[in-house]
């Protein structure tokens, strides 16, 4: 039980130190000091800095995916479900900018394993996007990569805001990320109309 809370504290520390110092500059000492945990305990829990970072990444992204999926499942039409899911995502990221930076920007600094895991996490969002195939007329004949395009566009818009340290403004991006999600499936005119209609 104590070990468990020490683990959680180390994960919190990885998120905070990573956001302030960057992953590259973060040391094991930073982590153990920030979490008030001994080096011995650290090594009982993690193999090293990367292992700890990856665990923090997994914890953050699992929580995000849970929130997004729950919000998405509550909507009726696909555009409304997408809007609800994206709104939940933006709110969660705005609430915790350090976590947001780690989950969407700094993971790249942690090397190939973290980058692969990041791509895998994004791909888990595929079903949310690909409901557009059933919704859109002719959606079945869209390129196989359509959901990856939409996910890339959404991740790009959010990453851009985070790089410019505008995490607090993220909820204002909702119309744009919803447009980005809908547009490859239903085109710009219908996407703009759905963005307007679902905001009522």
């Amino acid at each position, binding site marked *: 039980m104590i070990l468990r809370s020490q683990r959680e504290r180390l994960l919190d520390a990885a998120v905070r130190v990573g956001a302030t110092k960057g992953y590259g500059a973060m040391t094991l000492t930073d982590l153990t000091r920030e979490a008030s945990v001994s080096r011995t305990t650290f090594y009982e829990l993690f193999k090293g800095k990367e292992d700890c970072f990856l665990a923090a990444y997994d914890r953050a992204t699992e929580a995000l995916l849970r929130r997004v999926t729950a919000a998405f499942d509550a909507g009726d039409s696909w555009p409304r479900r997408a809007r609800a899911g994206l709104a939940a995502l933006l709110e969660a990221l705005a609430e915790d900018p350090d976590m947001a930076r780690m989950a969407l920007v700094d993971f790249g600094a942690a090397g190939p394993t973290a*980058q692969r895991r990041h791509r895998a996490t994004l791909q888990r969002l595929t079903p949310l996007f690909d409901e557009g195939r059933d919704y859109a007329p002719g959606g079945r004949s869209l390129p196989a990569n359509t959901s990856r395009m939409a996910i890339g566009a959404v991740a*790009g*818009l959010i990453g851009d805001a985070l790089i410019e340290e505008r995490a607090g403004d993220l909820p204002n991006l909702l119309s744009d990320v919803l447009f980005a999600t809908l547009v490859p499936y239903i085109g710009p005119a219908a996407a703009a109309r759905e963005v307007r209609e679902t905001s009522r």
Partner: protein
Amino acid sequence: MASASRRDQILAAMIRVVGRKGYRETSVADVIEEADTSRTTFYKHFEDKHECFLASYDMLIERVFAEVVDKCDGAEPWLERVEKGLETIVQLFAVEPELARTAMVEVAAAGADARQRHWSAVERFTRYLDHGRELSDGAELPANISKLSAGAVSGLIFDELQAGRAEQLPELLPDLVFAMLVPYIGPSAAAEEMRRTAKAT
């Protein structure tokens, strides 16, 4: 003059080594060896690995951009420019996978200032290729629509490079064309362009 070209050699070496070994694993010693120069020369030009990397990244972007501009004269119709521009990039990346990895993947490991450069470069390319507003039948497009294309296109390229498929990137060209065009002209018109590109290549 000799000194300027020596500097360029170091920058080119940095791009290759980082693409091969990864940014974190790259040391100044690796770069010196690759550039066939001395430690003294390296430190005459650069403060450290990070400064050298940023300079090499700027050089890389200028080179890729110059190749794109070279292939597009700016007078061609927008659709054609998108196809030519993307084709230039995927072919360059396929021929020089190390450069591609440095440009798109390893840059993320080089800190916040490097990521900032990466993102501005991607946007610069999309803005150059992006005259889609004129073709979009007056739909109310978001102000940052070029960022949206940028994210879609770079996400697909990133995935391929991550999977070690730089050489196969040209096969992805039709999909990239679709991704770039779809926010402006919608899926059926973009799919038509995609098929046209697939036939031409």
